């Protein structure tokens, strides 16, 4: 998100964030970055599920931050 991305991050915590970027969980390149690939591989080994991100909730109208 730091790489000239026009989308916004509203807020973040240690293990998540709220953004207006759609389908990031489906499009994030898991193998291209040191941290994401390490997390992806470890997660896959632990759970046989390689999901790096998951969408917890979609807010259609807007947010108050």
């Amino acid at each position, binding site marked *: *998100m*730091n790489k*000239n991305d026009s989308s*916004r*991050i*509203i*807020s*973040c*915590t*240690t*293990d*998540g*964030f*709220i*953004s*207006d*970027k*759609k389908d*990031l*969980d489906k499009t994030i390149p898991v193998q291209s*970055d*040191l*941290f994401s690939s*390490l*997390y992806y591989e*470890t*997660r896959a080994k*632990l*759970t046989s*599920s390689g*999901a*790096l*991100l*998951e*969408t*917890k*909730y*979609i*807010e*259609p*109208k*807007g*947010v*108050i*931050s």
Partner: protein
Amino acid sequence: MMTPAGVELSGDLHEYLDYFLGSYHGGRNESFLYGTVKGEFYDYDLPGAYPTAMSILDYPAWDKKQMVQPQLGSDFLCLLGETKILRSYTALKVKFEFPLTVQYPNLPVRLDFTSIIFPSTGETFCTGLEFLLAMRLNCNIKILGGVYIPFLGKKYRKNNKSRPGRNRSIGIIPVVEPKIIELINVYKNNFFGSMDNPDVKTREMLYSENYHFLKNLLKTNKETDRKPSFSENGDETEFYGVVHELLDERLKYPKGSYMNLLYKFIANAGIGQMARGLNQKSRYDSQTNSTRIQPAGALVSPLYAG
């Protein structure tokens, strides 16, 4: 430890403990926009972030500890490389400046006793992972000092079946290490193993994170019973084994069931217990119905917590 005798009896722990304590900042929780924002928004989550991160940890190779001398961040990175820093407990004191194009800098700086900010420039303590991410964001870093302790690695584990730290007579952190294994086993064998339908009182005890309760459980466990219940083949650390076992246990129960959630809670609580008491934060204590400073837990270690 912070007494004259404590410092003297701690071996060389006093030389580098400050770096690890300073680089522990707790969890991040930050808003970048304020007010009402219209549009469609997505709440993304790293699934199982805490247990996954914990599973990557390893015991520190104390005999390979190195103090980091003042130098440029780029020189330090060239010297060790990303993988070595990734597989280590590294704590650094740094001066830094991110490029203006970086919208979300990642180095935490204490504003006061209760607030942490993530500015574009500043001076702070950080972990090796935070340093690596900052360098990837083209941050200009000057290291003022620090300490680097590599992970033990599988080569050591293959040749040494006894757990490190067992035989150290002095020091705080190494003595704590095996307890992560012990605690999980005590939890499981003495408590959860035969508990399919916990009553209300038991449930309250489980969720109270009562230190004395855990401590008493540890006391009831005989020394001879303290064996890890998972196999170690040299490729996986004991931390990985604990997390893997907890996730396996969780999957035995239907999603959303009490036991499924309970194992999720235990796995997530691991990292929290490693940091418990480091910040001297006040918490509500249901036993005394009052607020008190949270004491250190049996698993606390600033190396693991950071």
